[in-house]
């Protein structure tokens, strides 16, 4: 059956820079904002944009992600035709197909795209924090008669960390430099692309064996071949949360700048997430709970200040949590003091533990073991 748009979501990232947070899970399955996972953003965006034919290309530690996404009913993506398909590495006549890069992954699963014979292919990533209606980008792509459209956003800090687009007055891309030393503009690629399927196919077929990445290889190749490339400027809030610091900062944005993501007024453009089937949280006794977000199933006896708590957390009497992000099912004993920490899922913090940091620090059970040993 023919589809107009097929979305390919790259969720294979290892996310090594997220340290212990991704020890046993793929980056898109990382917790965010109390009750979300990073992948909720892209899947909710797709659902809200009415795009329901989706290939999810996985690679690193896919189990948790697979069991989380299931058939996609959480995002209303469990439709009869299309829906979410998991595309995993497989062994074929040509050997093992381990993905070497973003475009390489798409090339391997091009057969999936072909079966729907779409006009457009939307390439997305599973680990970005943003709310975006892809239809607006696709609409611009169609209206400007482009062959490729690259979503972009204005960066205020150091542009040399991004892929920078230089455009003419009509949004047409003139040059593209991956992490340039001397950026020509502050318009950065979001790593989100709309391709005319035929153009994508041709580019991938014509690419060399070591052309494996869209940013590094395919886009420069297309520019060289004079393909029409346009930039779509996204004006909303967008974060690539590749590092502990950026992940922490994006979490804190929910508290300090709720208007960025508007998770609280979600009626028009909801952010869907799988519910955990726990009763509402219970604040049993607490001197202070301010500027915080708390999820279902928590049992709170301590003080919570400027922090985000996921579900099923226990905070005992006398403990103080400040400027921190606590992942699900963490148990915190009495009289603990926690400041500027990301506590990883399932950690158990014994009574009287002090985890006060100047720089945001990821804490998991291994980390806690080490402290325990040091103290002895």
């Amino acid at each position: 059956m023919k589809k107009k748009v097929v979305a390919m979501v790259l969720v294979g990232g290892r996310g090594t820079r997220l340290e212990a947070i991704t020890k046993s899970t793929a980056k898109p399955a990382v917790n965010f904002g109390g009750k979300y996972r990073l992948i909720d953003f892209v899947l909710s965006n797709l659902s809200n944009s009415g795009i329901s034919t989706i290939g999810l290309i996985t690679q690193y530690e896919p189990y948790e992600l697979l069991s989380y996404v299931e058939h996609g009913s959480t995002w209303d993506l469990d439709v009869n035709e299309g829906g979410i398909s998991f595309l995993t590495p497989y062994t074929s006549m040509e050997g093992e197909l381990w993905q070497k890069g973003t475009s390489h992954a798409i090339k391997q699963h091009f057969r999936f795209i072909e079966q729907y014979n779409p006009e457009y292919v939307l390439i997305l990533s599973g680990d970005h924090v943003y709310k975006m209606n892809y239809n607006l980008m696709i609409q611009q792509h169609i209206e400007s008669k482009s062959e490729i459209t690259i979503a972009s956003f204005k960066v205020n800090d150091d542009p040399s960390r991004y892929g920078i687009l230089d455009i003419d007055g009509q949004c047409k891309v003139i040059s593209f430099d991956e992490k340039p030393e001397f950026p020509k503009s502050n318009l950065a690629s979001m790593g989100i692309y709309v391709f005319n399927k035929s153009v994508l196919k041709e580019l991938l077929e014509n690419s060399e064996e070591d052309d494996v990445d869209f940013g590094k290889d395919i886009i420069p190749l297309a520019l060289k071949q004079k393909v029409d490339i346009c930039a779509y400027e996204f004006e909303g809030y967008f974060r690539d949360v590749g590092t502990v610091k950026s992940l922490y900062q994006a979490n804190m944005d929910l508290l300090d700048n709720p208007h960025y993501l508007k998770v609280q007024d979600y009626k028009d453009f909801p952010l869907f997430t799988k519910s955990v089937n726990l009763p509402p949280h219970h604040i049993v006794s607490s001197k202070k709970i301010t500027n915080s977000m708390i999820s279902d199933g928590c049992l709170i006896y301590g003080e919570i200040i400027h922090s985000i708590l996921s579900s099923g957390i226990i905070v005992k009497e006398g403990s103080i949590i400040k400027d921190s992000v606590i992942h699900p099912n963490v148990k915190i004993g009495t009289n603990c003091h926690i400041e500027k920490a990301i506590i990883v899922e399932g950690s158990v913090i014994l009574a009287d533990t002090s985890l006060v940091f100047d720089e945001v620090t990821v804490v998991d059970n291994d980390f806690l073991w080490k402290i325990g040993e040091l103290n002895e």
Partner: protein
Amino acid sequence: MNNNLFAVVDATFKDNLEQLTLHRMPGALPFAGKYRLIDFTLSNVRNSQITNVAIFPYGNYRSLQDHVGSGKKWDLDRRRDGLFILPPKNLYISPSEMITFQRMYEHIEFFKRSSQDYALITSANIVWNIDYYDCLAQHIKNDVDVTEVMYQNIRLKTFIISKKLLVEYIMTYDSLEYRTMIELVEKAPNLKINIYKHKNYTRTITDTFNYLKSNLDMLRFDIGMKIFTPERPVYSKEKTAPPARYLKNAVIENSMISSGSIVDGTVINSVIARDVKIAKGAIIKNSFVMSNSVIEENSNINYCILDKQTIVKKNSNIEGTLNSPYVSQKEQIVTSFEDLKVLFVASESYPFIKTGGLADVIGSLSRNLARQGVSATVILPLYKKIRESFIESLKSEFTKTIIYDEERYKVRIYSYRYKKVKYYFIDSFDFFDTENVYGYENDTDRFAFFNKTVVDLLDDLDTFDLVHINDWHASLIPILIDNSKHKGLKTLLTIHNIDYQGIAKNNIIKKIGIDNFIYKDEMINFLEIGINTASKLSTVSPTYKEELKYEYYGKNLTYSLLNRERDFYGILNGISSSFDPQIDKAIKTNYSVDTFEGKLENKLYLQKKMGLVVNKDKFIIGMVTRIVEQKGFDLILNSFDSLLENKDIQFILLGAGDEKYIAELEKLEQRFPSKIKLNIGYDATNPNYIYSGADIFLMPSRFEPCGLGQMIALKYGTLPLVRKTGGLNDTVLKYDPITKKGNGFTFNNYDANEMKNGIISAYNLYKDNKKDWNKLIERAMKSDNSLVKSTQKYIEFYNAIVKN
């Protein structure tokens, strides 16, 4: 034993949850923030691995259907078996205390098709966590016919029965004496019954008190742990809401707060559902706030149940009690009660003029409203009788010219302040200067003129927030208002008696000056016009309100009432605090709930007064009533001969009315002169002798919108024996021999035999079990049917009308 049980979830009944269940069934009531009541039963079903489930809904089951969906959340979305919602086929079966075999018969296919050997019949309004297979195991082990599941002394309307036996009962429902499982267990002979006692926390949600209480119970750690267990979780429909958010000024003590809520105020000992906004300075205590409500700055909320999307305005002070919580309506805008101005329009009001119960209601309701801070005004026609008794004290206000039927009529307005209530009287020589209140050929003209004058007077009097009109005599007020410059003023029509409707030629509409009215027929019906045009409607009890949807009760107006179903409420009247055996000067000995032995002296005094045998062991049936068909005299005349012949009973009646029945009753009295004493005429004796001295108070009414007699009897510890209809059903709770609960006796059908059996079982209890009998008296005397309570409900309702 696995998969040998199918479930029947009973959601066919309506309980006394007031406006909370107006647009939803009890099973769809929100609970503990993010759940609905039915989640508990369905989760138990799922955790017991039951895969074949039928829900029998009642009335408006949209919100239940929406919530349950395909049953996926409870693993009931399957190929074999699954979840079935089986609506009623016959809309004329009025609701019962639980699902009837007749109702099951409508879907007999479900029962026949079920492959499991046993049926679980349970209810959608229970909060608990139970393994039904444990009940089944006990059922099989004890080799019984029926297992009833109970918690402590609470009957849970939950049973286990073999499919074979159940299908037998269903197939023969029309020849059985028992209509439901409850009746079966109570009445069926030779039935082997086992009681399974569930040990953990269980509550059935049947009124606003235990609804609020059980919600707040979830804040107790020991109880919450028993209901929300990780091994047997409670499942619910998924919603999308971010985590709850606390702002700078949040103060929280022992509360449950659900996703999406934003809290900047103080929350103490409360349960907050999803997406509730609580502003700075707001204080919420001991309350349950449902989803999407907004609590504005500096408002104060205590012991409230706020339905979805309620908005509590700035600085409002809303307070209920645990026993009688304040209940808001869906989407209501709530402010403090002060400054509410209500105008009553009725044909009579005590103490100025009284021909029936309407006068008592208007008089006492307006007085109590005024006492509770509402500004109440009553307008009455100045009948001859009022002039004769009161003209000296009335203040003449002004005169006004009213145009009626193109003629000019002069009226004079008098006023009087009676116990904080402002009264206005309309003096018109042409229309109201009559001996009686009703009974004239031109009654419809008289009251049409009355209505026209009232609406014209709105120009001259202070402004009102609401006009509360009563019965047909005021039913033209809404269209008159709509055609005046007061258009938009809210009206509430209360139907006290649907038998009188005011029928007139259609030109009467022209006479009151309305030209654009579309006529259907040559005759028009005042009450029908009122029903179609008033902002909201009410009648005098929740059950009667339900009954009016059936032609047997609603008669020719059933259809009009069904059209207004969404705006139609039932609010029970109450009795004045002067009905109290502790302070009643008329009775022989005063007594209270602690000293009700004193009631015995009143009984002996009554026997003496009536000239009957004075003996404390005789069983006295008392009645104070109008003697008319409606009050059930056909049943009495058809059964009392055999009853009095065989039992040690005395029957004392006070009343007046229909000659035909009086003659028959007198014949009966002649047959049993030593057992019967009739007091014919309204003041033939003091009714309070009977209220205080009888053992049971009989009201076998065919229909009874509200009824006050049973409320007075309850207060005096005289156990009412009533037919389950109208207000009787809302006030009398049947004695349950298993749990010993209740405050009287009831029977279902308008049938002489059923009434007789009811009297005999009360008689037997009286003779054989004084302990239970006394317990019942205690419960009866503790029943709260006070005017204060009923007035509170009216205020809540007025606010809901005015502020929306």
